[in-house]
């Protein structure tokens, strides 16, 4: 999927640090963003993602390190001389100008002729499907329309890097889904290198070529949505990108040929198809079991591999999915049962079986 991107770094961050007084909010960020790629900074609030974005845009001064845009170091360039454009969370549309004047602002500043501005603004408004709204004042637009204007204004000068700071957070849930698809479509069509900031991990996974998961001023992991979700680097990331059940265990044997691995846990022994190279026999590990990968069935008392018995504590039916809580010994396990056609059986059930899949990601515990 990300193979379409040309393998040329458009934006390079080298060991970027940012201090506010004695408070270090960015503690050494290094990253390459390829041309045409959409990279998302995601992390809990206060992790430094917005600061990093503002730093790339030139609104915040860098304390140490380098920012390289298309081969040129831009550390000391003010925003008006950088070929980056930002789209703020609150859109920052100029309330004293019309839609067309907003979109054409950058063109006017950069000395475009009146006819060229008109033509370009028309194209841009067409692109975001607001042709009829050029003469409107900003406060007469809906949230989604304002978002489109902000986007059109940001891409008007065809920046080398587009910076989007939580652009969807002011929209309601449905509109957010629609807009994120539209942004992604336009971004791909125009092939604009884009840095997207969000605290919404699902939005991040849906829209990005690559995710940069940040915490506490540091990058925790960089990877495609699939990599981050299926092979998280640590416990924090595993829990950050979706719900997860952790099971403590120890590797008792690894079959050299088939990579079939046995993990001994408090709740029994599980057989895993090991995909990682960094795990050896005798290692203490954390099994990362996603709720939707578990199979839930009624307990008929027949012993099978990778199956443990438990008590169904709650069963919340929500149409396409049922959210269940199963207590196994001292552990509470969350299970998502998709397409729960036999829900009525579980509604009354108490004893259930839980089957852990063979494909489970393992996190090695530090000794």
């Amino acid at each position, binding site marked *: 999927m990300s193979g379409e991107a040309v393998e040329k770094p458009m934006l390079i961050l080298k060991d970027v640090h940012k201090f506010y007084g004695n408070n270090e909010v960015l503690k050494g960020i290094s990253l390459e963003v390829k041309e045409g790629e959409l990279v998302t900074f995601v992390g809990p609030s206060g992790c430094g993602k917005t600061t990093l974005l*503002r730093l790339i*845009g*030139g*609104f*915040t001064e860098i304390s140490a390190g380098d920012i390289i845009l298309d081969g040129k170091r831009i550390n000391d360039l*003010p*925003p*008006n*001389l950088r070929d*980056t*454009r*930002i789209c*703020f*969370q*609150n*859109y*920052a*549309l*100029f*309330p*004293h100008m019309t839609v067309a004047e907003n979109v054409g*602002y*950058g063109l006017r*500043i*950069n000395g475009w002729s009146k006819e060229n501005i008109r033509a370009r603004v028309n194209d841009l408004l067409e692109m975001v499907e607001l042709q009829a709204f050029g003469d409107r004042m*900003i*406060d007469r637009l809906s*949230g989604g329309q*304002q978002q489109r204007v902000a986007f059109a*204004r940001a891409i*008007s*000068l065809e920046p080398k890097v587009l910076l989007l700071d939580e652009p969807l957070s*002011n929209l309601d849930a449905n509109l957010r889904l629609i807009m994120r698809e539209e942004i992604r479509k336009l971004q791909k069509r125009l092939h604009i290198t884009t840095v997207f900031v969000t605290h919404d991990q699902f939005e991040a996974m849906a829209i990005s070529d690559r995710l940069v998961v940040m915490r506490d001023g540091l990058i925790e992991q960089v990877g495609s949505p699939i990599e981050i979700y299926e092979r998280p680097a640590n416990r924090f990331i595993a829990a950050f990108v979706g719900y997860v059940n952790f099971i403590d265990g120890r590797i008792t044997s690894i079959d050299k040929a088939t990579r079939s691995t046995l993990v001994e846990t408090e709740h029994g022994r599980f057989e895993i198809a090991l995909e990682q190279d960094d795990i050896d026999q005798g290692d203490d590990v954390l099994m990362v079991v996603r709720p939707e990968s578990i199979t839930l069935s009624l307990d008929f008392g027949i012993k099978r591999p990778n199956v443990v018995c438990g008590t169904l504590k709650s069963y919340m039916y929500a149409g396409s999915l049922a959210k269940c809580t199963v207590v196994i010994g001292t552990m509470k396990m969350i299970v998502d049962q998709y397409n729960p056609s036999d829900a009525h059986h579980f509604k009354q059930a108490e004893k259930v079986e839980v089957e852990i899949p063979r494909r489970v990601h393992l996190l090695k515990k530090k000794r």
Partner: protein
Amino acid sequence: MARAEYSLKLQAGSGSRIKDFLNANLINILAALLFLLLAFFLLYPIIAVLIKSIRGPSGFTLEYYRAFFTKNYYYRSLFNTLLLGTINTVVCLVIGFCLAYMTTRGPYLLRKPLKVISLVPLIAPPYLFALSLIILFGRNGLVTRMFDLHWQLYGFAGVVISQTLAFIPLAYMMLENTLMSLNPNLEESAYDMGASEATILRTITIPLMAPGLLKAALLIFVMTIAEFGNAAILAGRTPFLAPDTYTMITGESDFNMGSVLSVVLIAPCIIIFFVHNYLLEGKKFTTIGGKPVASEPRKITPIIKIPLIIVTTMATGAIFICFAVVLAASFYKILGVTDKFILANYLDFTSNQAIANSIRVSFVAAVIGAVIGVLLAYVIVRGKFFGRTFIEMASLSGFALPGTVLGIGYLLAFSAPPLKLTGGIMILALNCVFRFLAVGVEAGISKLHQIHIEIEEASADLGASFLTTFYKIVLPIMFPAFIAGFIYTFMTAIVSLSAVVFLVSPGFQLAAVKIFDAAVYGEIGIASATTIKLILIVMLCMAVLNYITKKTRLGSGLKQPVA
């Protein structure tokens, strides 16, 4: 059965008719009482001035107005006043803008010190600047003697300079407020699109500030043309409306002409009030929500930066020097002439007597003002009766009215029966109460807006009568507003000059008037020491207010989520 009886009793009320009547109508009774007070102590004096201006010895006449518009002297007085207002407004806005821009967009290091110095004049009586200009540039002034200059401080220039310095804080506060409320992302977006600092200012910042700028301009204009102290001390032979009114009354006892001058002074205030309401109708640029981020410092280009730095340095430097010379002058008989360090100015009996009187008057004014202010605020916010808007406008208007007008008005209204108050402490206190009523009312209104009506409804719902609710719920919640109203009224009253100067009696001098007299008669040491004492009192008040605010969380208080 018992239950039914109980609910019957609830419907029937408490049994006492008077109590029931009070419960049902208290807010209206309150409103009526307050209306009477406003009418008697605010409107009646103003009307008295209007009537005096059109009533001669033989009944109705426009003779006095004819005199005003035909005599060259009055015409010049009007012209000077309007010119002063215009120059002052423009200069104050420019300086205020530069200061506000630096404290909201400039380097972090400069923000705090600039802000503090810009606001410092608030703790001093505005005529401090007239005094310091005399100390520096007067006939015996430090600078005048040092360079053996032969210039004339007294006149138009002196008034303009002192007035400008006095109104910098007001301009600064209003413009800082406007700049702070601008979403910083707007300017950043323009910056991001390639605009330079100057272009951002021209295309984004100033257009978006326009309503705020206009509002500040109108207010400063009204305040400066009405301001009495600096003009009275430094005008010399140059006529200005406010001090001329004073000379007309005290020097020539010509109440008719004095009233005409006052009416002429009110006229621009009223015109501007309506212009302001008309112009700003719905003209507020609202920006889309999101977290307001404090503006980060920008690399301001030299073309903008150098003028900014020059203006802010000069303004803050001038303010600083003015305070410093008054402090220095308070320790000498005449600074620069006699060089013996003395404390006599601080020990001066008449000065201390005047300070004591001022404290008494301001205290009485503050108590009454805070009570009426809180009650008025309650009636304005919660009341639903005919004339509510009128009461609100009336109670807030005292502040914008020229002090001289209310001074003459009180002289005219209360020097003869039915209510003869002249010569006592009450006329001074009441004058301050109704001039500065806006202070207490504003404090009360802002407090009430934080309290949801639901709290009172909840109390009523639980069975409390209106009286009980008011007594048990509203008053305790309003108490911080009362304290704030008290201290603000006290601080404002103790330095005010323009109205009380008409009302003091020879045996009962006030500090502000003492400073004024001493400055006029060249007793610079006494004037300076008295000023410093006033500053210390105001600083003490602010410290107390600060302490209480922190203790009771008066500022944030019971904040309710806004639905």
